[in-house]
């Protein structure tokens, strides 16, 4: 059969059929189709860009309202770049369907151009979309890690996890894009190329179809190497910037009292020498302020000077306050020095070795209590009050369910846990929270009105009080005004005071030691100040007179790694010296504090 016969059959069949179109249905479908089309265009062009713009605003708002490091803002240019890229790309390569009324050859060429552009976009999604975000977010994660890590091991551990998470996520996004190219777009491209080839003019060289070469994908390793190098460069910049930042702060120190000026010179010299953010000290003689001085900033870089009336976190100095509170309960008959862990916690779970441990052993760090709670307790953040009391009791019961770290009464071991157990025992006896007991038994009788619990509250902008500073890899970093040890271990270290309140409190112990205390009997004060096993008294350490000092000194210091405080009383001189710093570099702060004590207690 010759092909013309096909035409005959075809035409005959055509004449024997009639195609009718349901016009109303077509119209309805056209309207629905146009709505769908508009919705697709809206989703693609408006929503994609709107999400980017909203993200941009969110990023800037979050940056302005939170205490985030400057690297947070690196994502802003990344977002602007991606939004701009999408807009320009949409403008230059509108993805609306080609005009169907064009000749087939032209429409196939246009389709091919669109598909090849889509392939180019997806193959290069790493460069225009993923890399800007990867680098900016890695820099931010790295910066946060540096600000939160004390050493390189911690930084590598914390930062490494974030790094791997982000790289995995972005690698996955890259992978699904490349997969879409392989599975969908490349076959379509080949199909169009074949179509184009079959329509190619075979009679002349004119009109030969120009087929663009496919874009080869970049090598994955090279891509991520570039990300790693970019991130590393930013890390180095962050570290160098953090370490080379020299404070332009040059405000004269605050001082008061007869010897205020000389103390001011001393603390200014020590602060600068030891590179501390802030340093303050007070010397009280026979209950009167002899000198008080403060130098440095409430927060590094803020330019706001610390004042002599500022409040300071006391860390372990809290222990002597807890011991004093318990001594008051004992003198009033609500507790006894011989009260044991077993008598106040009769639970079956309590380990046998703990049952005979006395309150006195706990307060003199001879109970065999471990130095610190396990990490899960540190991570708990109960608010002070009944919730904290309950959490504290639970933590204590967990500790005393196990054998003590060393045989009770045999060995001194500095312990935050021991004081927490003692605090929980006082709570159990009285039914009152530890902090309320401290207020009733110590703060109120001594009129310590500028004392409290946790770090002093201090807003980001207003900075009414100093902020503690962590000493980390990136340098000194201001902590927020809630950063502290868990309140569960409150009895061992979360009280804050002004220098005046701290000296007033220590003066009471000084007077007590001299037989003139108001809060407790002389006998009890003596007991509180007498070291057990020649090491540690109830929240006090004693330095005997010797070559370096003519008189006995009672002292204690403390630090929650963001603050440092030292208090010393010298009964023979009727002198109290308190030194405080809002700097967590406890080695330097301690050295400065003892220099000041040495100079003032000659």
């Amino acid at each position, binding site marked *: 059969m010759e092909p013309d016969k096909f035409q005959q059959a075809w035409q005959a069949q055509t004449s024997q059929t009639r195609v*009718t179109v*349901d016009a109303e249905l077509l119209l309805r479908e056209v309207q629905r189709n146009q709505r769908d089309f508009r919705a697709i265009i809206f989703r693609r062009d408006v929503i994609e860009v709107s999400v980017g713009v909203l993200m941009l605003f969110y990023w800037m708002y979050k940056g302005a309202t939170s205490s985030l490091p400057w690297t947070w803002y690196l994502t802003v240019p990344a977002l602007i770049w991606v939004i701009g890229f999408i807009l320009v790309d949409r403008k230059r390569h509108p993805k609306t369907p080609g005009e169907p009324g064009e*000749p087939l050859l032209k429409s196939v060429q246009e389709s091919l151009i669109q598909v090849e552009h889509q392939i180019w976009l997806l193959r290069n999604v790493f460069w225009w979309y993923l890399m800007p975000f990867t680098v900016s977010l890695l820099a931010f994660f790295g910066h946060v890690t540096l600000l939160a890590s004390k050493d390189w091991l911690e930084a590598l551990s914390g930062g490494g996890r974030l790094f791997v998470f982000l790289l995995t996520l972005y690698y996955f996004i890259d992978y699904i894009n490349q997969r879409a190219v392989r599975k969908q777009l490349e076959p379509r491209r080949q199909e169009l190329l074949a179509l184009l080839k079959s329509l190619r003019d*075979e009679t002349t060289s004119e009109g030969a179809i120009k087929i663009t070469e496919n874009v080869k994908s970049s090598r994955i390793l090279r891509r991520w190497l570039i990300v790693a190098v970019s991130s590393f460069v930013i890390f180095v910049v962050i570290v160098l910037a953090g370490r080379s930042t020299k404070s332009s702060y040059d405000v004269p120190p605050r001082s008061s009292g007869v010897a205020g000026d000389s103390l001011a010179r001393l603390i200014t010299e020590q602060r600068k020498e030891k590179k501390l953010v802030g340093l303050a000290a007070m010397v009280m003689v026979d209950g009167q302020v002899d000198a008080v001085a403060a130098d440095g900033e409430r927060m590094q870089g803020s330019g706001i000077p610390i004042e002599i009336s500022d409040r300071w976190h006391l860390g372990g100095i809290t222990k002597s306050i807890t011991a004093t509170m318990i001594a008051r309960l004992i003198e009033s008959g609500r507790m006894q020095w011989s009260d044991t862990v077993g008598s106040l916690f009769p639970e079956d779970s309590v380990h046998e070795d703990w049952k005979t441990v006395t309150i006195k052993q706990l307060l003199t760090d001879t109970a065999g209590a471990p130095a610190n709670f396990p990490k899960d307790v540190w991570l708990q953040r109960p608010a002070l009050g009944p919730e904290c009391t309950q959490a504290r009791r639970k933590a204590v019961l967990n500790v005393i369910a196990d054998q003590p770290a060393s045989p009770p009464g045999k060995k001194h071991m500095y312990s935050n846990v021991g004081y927490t157990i003692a605090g929980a025992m006082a709570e159990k006896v009285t039914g009152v929270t530890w902090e309320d007991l401290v207020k009733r038994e110590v703060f109120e009788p001594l009129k310590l009105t500028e004392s409290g619990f946790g770090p002093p509250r201090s807003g980001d902008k207003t900075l009414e009080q100093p902020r503690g500073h962590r000493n980390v890899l990136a340098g000194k970093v201001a902590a927020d005004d809630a950063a502290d040890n868990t309140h569960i271990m409150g009895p061992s270290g979360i009280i804050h005071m002004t220098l005046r309140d701290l000296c007033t409190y220590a003066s009471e112990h000084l007077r007590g030691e001299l037989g003139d205390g108001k809060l407790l009997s002389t006998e009890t004060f003596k007991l509180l100040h007498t070291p057990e096993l020649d090491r540690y008294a109830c929240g006090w350490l004693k330095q005997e007179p010797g070559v370096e000092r003519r008189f006995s000194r009672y002292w204690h210091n403390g630090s929650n790694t963001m603050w440092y405080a030292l208090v010393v009383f010298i009964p023979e001189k009727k002198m109290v010296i308190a030194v405080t710093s809002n700097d967590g570099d406890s080695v330097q702060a301690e050295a400065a504090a003892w220099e000041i004590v040495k100079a003032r207690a000659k």
Partner: protein
Amino acid sequence: MKDEDQKSLFMNWLDDHAASVMKVARAYTVTSEECQDLAQEILLQAWRSVSNFKHQASPATWFYRVALHTAMNWHRKNKPHRLRQQPLLEVQAISPDGIDSAQQAQHLETVEQLYKAINQLPKADAALVLLYLDELSYREMAEVLGISESNVGVKLNRAKKALGDLMNGEPHGT
């Protein structure tokens, strides 16, 4: 073009060219459901672009362009929401005078074989064969496809040969 004018022009054209739409749809699909879907898509595309019709081509050429363009870009899986209640296009058989039923049956069988053969051809060859069967001139084919008339001649000869081979039961090679 006003909406009413557009609607009126389009409906007039459909009377003459709906059959071409159906043929193209059938040539590029396998099942009757797919054929309906593609035909509907061609009509939607045609409606959308009728306002751009510049009268530089005849309505027949233009309809073929739209139909072939749509068929080449059409993917069954990308169109999941098509209206299903009733077909948009309906094919009715009519019996013209002067043709006996045996001849009708012969034509019908030949056309069925032609569709099967066209389905096996490369897409561009299928388009050429469709245009040839509908007796378009070389010039019209060149306008539809956007290639030169001489090129149409070369390609059509090859496509016709491939069609003939397929109709004679010989495998089609490239």
